C-alpha cells in the first residue's frame, strides 16, 4: 500500500482509530505507525477527536480479580494497601435506601419456570414492574439460559429531560450491580439486552434514577425506584 499519498494516510489513520481498519492492513499500519511521526500525529488527532464517544460509554466496575491478576503479572506483591473488598451482600443497596429514604414503588408479579435448552428466547424469569397505582409499567422477561433480558414498556413513563432510568442486575455475590443499560420510556418500545454476567449469578433487577445517559460512575448513583428479586437471598 502506498503510504506516501496524504489523503490515504489521513484515511488510514482515521480508520485505524475508528477500528474499521482490520486484519493484515491493521497490522501493516501499526508497523508503519511505529516509525512514522506524521502518522503518529494523525492518529493522535483522531484519538483525541473521537474520545468523547468513549467518554459516553456507561462505566462498569470490573471484578476485583482483574486487579489481582494485573499485580500477579507484574510481579507485585498482592498485599498492597488496598480497600477491602469484603462487603456484606446488598450493602450497596442498603446504602442507597438509607441515603435516599425512598420506599419501593413496586408490586411485582413473579413467575419462575424451568430453564430449557432451546434456541428460541424462552423466558424463565418474568417480572412486572408497576407504579404506585399498581399499573404495570414494564414487563421484564429474561431467558437465563441465554442471559438475555427483554424489557417491554407497557405505558409511557414521564421523566425530566435530564434524567434516565437505568436497569441493573443485582448480583448474588454482593458485588455492585451490573448495568444492563437504559430503560425504554415510550409505550410499546422494547429493549433487548444480552447480559455479560450470567443471569444465574443474579438475584434480581433494580431500576435507578440517573442523570441522562446513565450513571457516570458505573454504580447506581440515584435512588433505586424499583427492585425485584427473582431468587431468595
Amino acid at each position: 500500500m502506498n503510504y506516501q499519498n496524504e489523503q490515504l494516510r489521513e484515511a488510514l489513520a482515521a480508520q485505524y482509530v475508528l477500528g474499521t481498519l482490520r486484519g493484515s492492513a491493521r497490522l501493516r499500519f501499526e508497523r508503519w505507525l511505529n516509525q512514522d511521526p506524521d502518522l503518529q500525529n494523525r492518529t493522535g488527532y483522531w484519538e483525541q477527536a473521537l474520545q468523547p464517544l468513549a467518554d459516553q460509554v456507561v462505566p462498569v466496575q470490573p471484578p476485583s480479580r482483574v486487579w489481582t491478576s494485573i499485580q500477579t503479572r507484574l510481579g507485585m506483591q498482592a498485599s498492597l494497601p488496598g480497600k477491602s473488598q469484603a462487603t456484606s451482600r446488598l450493602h450497596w443497596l442498603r446504602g442507597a435506601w438509607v441515603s435516599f429514604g425512598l420506599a419501593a414503588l413496586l408490586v411485582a408479579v413473579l413467575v419462575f419456570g424451568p430453564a430449557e435448552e432451546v434456541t428460541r428466547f424462552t423466558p424463565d424469569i418474568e417480572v412486572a414492574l408497576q407504579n404506585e397505582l399498581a399499573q404495570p409499567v414494564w414487563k421484564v422477561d429474561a431467558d437465563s439460559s441465554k442471559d438475555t433480558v427483554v424489557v417491554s414498556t407497557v405505558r409511557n413513563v414521564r421523566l425530566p429531560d435530564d434524567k434516565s432510568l437505568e436497569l441493573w442486575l443485582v448480583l448474588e455475590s454482593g458485588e455492585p450491580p451490573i448495568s444492563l443499560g437504559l430503560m425504554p420510556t415510550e409505550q410499546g418500545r422494547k429493549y433487548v439486552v444480552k447480559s455479560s454476567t450470567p443471569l444465574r449469578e443474579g438475584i434480581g433487577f433494580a431500576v435507578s434514577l440517573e442523570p441522562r445517559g446513565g450513571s457516570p460512575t458505573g454504580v447506581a448513583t440515584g435512588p433505586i425506584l424499583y427492585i425485584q428479586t427473582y431468587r431468595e437471598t
Partner: protein
Amino acid sequence: MLWISCPRNFVVAENQQLEQLLARTALRDRAAFQQLYNLTSPHLFGVALRILHTRSLAEEALQDAFVQIWQKAGEYRADKAQVNTWMTSITRYRALDMLRKSARETPLEELPDSVMPEQQGAQMMAAENADLELCMEELQNEQRECIALAYVDGYSHQELSDRLDTPLGTVKSWIRRGLQQLKECLQR
C-alpha cells in the same frame, strides 16, 4: 463501603490528577498505579465490554491494557495526548485485537438499540467535547450511526453492512465521507 465512595469516571476526574498518577507510575510507584487503576478501570472496562460483549474477554483486555500502561507509562507525552485518551486508546486497540482473534458470541441483532451512543445522552459530554457533538449532528444519520457503532461497539465494515442491510461499498463510503466531514467541521 467500596462503591459509594467509588472510583469516579475519568470524564470528571481531573486530567491533571491522572497525569500526576501516571508520572508516578512511570517512577514505579505502585500505590499511584493502583489509584490510577481505581479511578479509570470502570470506564475502561465499560469501553472493553462494549467492543467485546463478553465479560471474560473484557476482563482479559483490561488486564492486558493495564500491564501495558505500567510498562509504557514512561513513554506518555502530555503534549501529545490527554491521559484518558492515551489509556482509552491502549484499551480499545487491545480489545480490537482480541476481537479479531475470537468471533463475537453475541449475535448482532441482540445488541440493544437503546444504548446507542447518540441516544445515551450527549449531556454527559463535558463542555470541551461539545465540538464533536455538534459536528456529529451535522452528519447524515447513516454516517453518524456507522461511526458510532464502529468506534464504540467495534463493528467492522461487514458487520455494519449486515446490520444496516446496506451494500458494503455504501457503508465504506458513508464512513470515509463521514470522517472527512467530521474533520472539516472540527477544524472550522
